[in-house]
């Protein structure tokens, strides 16, 4: 099948910094955790970063910090996320952690644990690769 070039086809990786505009709004502890992750790949640093991203995109202000909620808390049913908000969270995670997530994978993510576990696996895969 012939491919028509709508834009240049020889793509170099997109700079991770390109779409991380939302990161500058995250609280200090999340930024520090992200620096730890960048420096040493500490997987424990993923949690604070992901909860901060989720809080940033959360449609409602939760009385309880998201990190203190049960792991089976549902993003859509319990926290009021819509599919686009989840997509925004995923895009931010992709940019920060240099991972790639497909649409099929996004729809499998339903709970807080799903999301954190999924991101950890993705990051581990990337490091192995």
């Amino acid at each position: 099948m012939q491919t028509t070039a709508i834009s240049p086809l020889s793509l170099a990786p997109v700079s991770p910094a390109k779409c991380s505009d939302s990161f500058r709004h995250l609280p200090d502890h999340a930024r520090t955790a992200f620096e730890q992750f960048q420096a040493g790949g500490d997987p424990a640093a993923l949690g604070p970063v992901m909860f901060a991203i989720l809080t940033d995109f959360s449609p409602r202000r939760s009385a309880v910090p998201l990190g203190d909620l049960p792991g089976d808390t549902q993003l859509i049913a319990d926290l009021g996320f819509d599919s686009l908000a989840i997509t925004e969270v995923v895009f931010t995670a992709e940019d920060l952690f240099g991972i790639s997530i497909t649409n099929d994978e996004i729809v499998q993510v339903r709970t807080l644990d799903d999301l954190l576990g999924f991101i950890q696996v993705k990051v581990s895969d990337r490091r192995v690769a």
Partner: protein
Amino acid sequence: MPPLPVITGLGFITSIGHDRAAVGRSLRELAHGFERVEFFGNPNLPVKVAGTIKGFDFPTPNWRDWRWPERFTVDRELLRGLAPHGVYALCALQQALTEAGLEPAELSDGTTGLFCASAGSPFMLGSFLGQMHETRGERGNPMGLVSSIAGTLNFSLAAHYRITGAVCGFVSACASSSHALGYAMDEIRLGRQQRMLVVGAEDMTAESIMAFSSLRALSNNPDPATASRPFDRRRDGFVGTGGAVAVIVEDAALARRRGAHILAELVGWGQAGDGHSVTASHPEGAGLREAMRRTLADARLNASDIGYVNAHATSTVAGDRSESLALHAIFTRQGAKPRVSSTKALTGHGLSMAGVMEAAFCALAIDEGFIPGAAHLEEPDPVCAGLDLPRVSLAEAPGIVLNNSSGFGGSNVCHLLRRPA
């Protein structure tokens, strides 16, 4: 009795005030809403003045950086998909619903529709497309499309307020919200809806306003006190503004059943094209003249019945001249002499939202019994000779009021409003 559309609520986020009281005061005292501005951080630009929206700040396209007066509530969930003018619109609509005595929960039963007008958000669209170019299509803000394209206003507000009646956006440049209001009147008159929310809004950004500098349509006068002076011999272009205005239109019978205060009846509207130029108005105002004639016919009124005309006049050399000629054709030649003023002398030109903004000013003037004066008019253009252009606002009931609007392509739209019987 056929349904009669009436106005029961107004909301304003404008350069001359963010509530009915402030706007009424500005119109009476002829206090303008202009400030010196520096678009694109470029001191060399000849455009120095704009109708700024005080208390709101949109320094970047990132909603986390946006600020608005504390008295307004903007849901976080909604904010992600809004343009700056969507924030203005939400604040204006909250006011209008409060004045009309309506709760958001009352808008979802299918009897209420929503007609909006904005040009979309060049500010948000530029950012969104810039991101896509920068990442060569690998990324785009998921809310980039809905927050930027023409229609952003109607689909954001319709979803937020759970509107299940008629929902539509109107795009006829500077006649857009006049079309929205006219067709909203028809929805009521045809019995299709009992209530219509009509909202016009525009960003107040360099991207929205400076685009008109490319057309040489903006004033280069650096003095906020004189840059916008419709009908004055020394006028040199319009001053841009943004903001939002919301109007609640209901069937009079419903409004009376609810015990709502009726500010004004909407007794007629009409439109006509110039069939002339994509940007310039017809040199003799042929389309506007015909639109006024059709509007009077729609209401079964004569030129001599009209007490006040809120002119479209934006302070451009050609546009004000052609409107003057159209006004002479409809009024002066019939021996009629309504008061005439353009409130754009105070607000600037609100582009898509201008028509509904000025219809709201007319409703306010009818309800409070005053006529806005022709601000900043010192040396009337000779073409205006014979028009009654009061230099100060008058503490007199305006009678039946005609509201004029014109847009690109020669779209001309007029409305007639009067005090409730």
